[in-house]
C-alpha cells in the first residue's frame, strides 16, 4: 500500500531577509526541523522571491544536483565555469556541482521581483566534473498533459542530472485527470502545487502544498480547479 506524507504550505519553514523571502519545505539554513530533512534524494525545495535588483552573491557548492525553475521574472546566473546566462519563466536550469563550483544569481531587473524554485537533489555520483545547462520549455507541452523536464538520461527530454530522478510539470484545466506511473522501483514522487487545487488519489492539495507518495507503482492526479503542479520522482534510498 502506498505511503504518503503531507506538507501543507503553511507548515514550511520561512525566512524573510528583506531582499529574499524564502519558504523551505525541508530544513535549510536557520530552519531546522528533524522531521523535515528530505524526501528520499530530494533535499531542498525552496520557494524564493528575490527583490528587484537584488540577488545571491558568489558562493560555492559541491556534490549536489541543483535545479532552478523561475516562476516569474528573470535571474542572471554567472559561475566559475565562465557561464553567464539569464534564466526566465519557462526555463529550467541545472548545475551538477560535483567537485566544486562558484556562482552568483541576481535579479538584474530594477522594477520587478523574481520568483523561483530552488531544488537540490543528492547526486548518485560524488566528485563529478561540474556542469551547467539550461533549456527553455514549451508551455504548450504541459497543457493538459505531463511534460518531462528532467531525467537521468542526457538524450532524453528536458535537462539531466546525476540521479535516477524524473521531474514533470503539468498545467491542467479543471476536471482533467491522469495517472502517473513511476519510472523506477524504489522511487517515490514529491508533488508540489504551483497554482490551483489538485487531488492526488484521495488527497486534496492546495497552492504550495507538498505531498510525498512512495511504495506504489502509480497514482492519479486530478485538477480540482485550473492548476499547475510539479512532480519530482526521486530514489527513496540515498
Amino acid at each position, binding site marked *: 500500500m502506498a505511503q504518503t506524507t503531507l506538507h501543507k504550505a503553511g507548515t514550511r519553514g520561512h525566512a524573510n531577509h528583506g531582499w529574499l523571502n524564502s519558504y523551505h519545505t525541508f530544513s535549510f539554513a536557520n530552519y*531546522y526541523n528533524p522531521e523535515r530533512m528530505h524526501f528520499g534524494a530530494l*533535499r531542498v525545495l525552496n520557494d524564493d522571491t528575490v527583490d528587484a535588483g537584488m540577488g545571491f552573491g558568489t558562493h560555492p557548492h*559541491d556534490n549536489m544536483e541543483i535545479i532552478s525553475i523561475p516562476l516569474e521574472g528573470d535571474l542572471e546566473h554567472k559561475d566559475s565555469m565562465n557561464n553567464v546566462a539569464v534564466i526566465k519563466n519557462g526555463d529550467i536550469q541545472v548545475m551538477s556541482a560535483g*567537485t*566544486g563550483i562558484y556562482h552568483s544569481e541576481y535579479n538584474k531587473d530594477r522594477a520587478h521581483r523574481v520568483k523561483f524554485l530552488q531544488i537540490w537533489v543528492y547526486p548518485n555520483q560524488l*566528485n563529478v566534473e561540474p556542469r551547467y545547462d539550461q533549456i527553455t520549455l514549451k508551455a504548450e507541452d504541459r497543457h493538459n498533459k505531463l511534460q518531462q523536464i528532467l531525467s537521468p538520461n542526457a538524450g532524453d527530454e528536458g535537462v539531466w542530472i546525476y540521479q535516477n530522478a524524473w521531474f514533470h510539470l503539468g498545467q491542467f484545466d479543471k476536471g482533467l485527470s491522469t495517472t502517473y506511473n513511476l519510472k523506477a522501483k524504489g522511487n517515490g514522487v514529491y508533488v508540489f502545487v504551483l497554482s490551483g487545487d489538485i487531488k492526488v488519489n484521495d488527497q486534496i492539495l492546495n497552492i504550495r502544498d507538498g505531498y510525498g507518495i512512495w511504495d506504489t507503482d502509480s497514482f492519479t492526479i486530478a485538477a480540482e480547479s485550473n492548476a499547475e503542479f510539479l512532480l519530482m520522482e526521486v530514489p527513496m534510498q540515498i
Partner: protein
Amino acid sequence: MSKIQILIIGRHPEILQTVVRLVNNNPDWECTGVITDEEAFAAFAAKPYRLVLLCNGVTPESEEKLRRVFRQHDPGIIIVQHYGGGSGLLSAEIRQALGV
C-alpha cells in the same frame, strides 16, 4: 561550556575555507579544516573531536581509510558527509548528526 570540536576535510581550499567560516559562525562549534588525509590524521591525533565532516573531493578510498583510522582511534566519533559546499544544508547536517 566548551565548544563542540569539528574536523572538516575537503580538497577544494576555497570551499573548505567557506565551510570552516560558516561552521565557526556558530558560537557552540569550533572547527579545524584540513585538505589532505595526512593533515586529517595529524589533527585527529592532536585533540579530541566530536564530529568529522567529509566535504568535497574526498574519494571513496580516502573516505574508507579515514573512517577506519578515526574509528580505531575513537569508536564513538561521528562521521558525516557534507553536501552542497558550505550551503544552507551545513547547519542541519551537523545538528542532525549531533542529535541536538
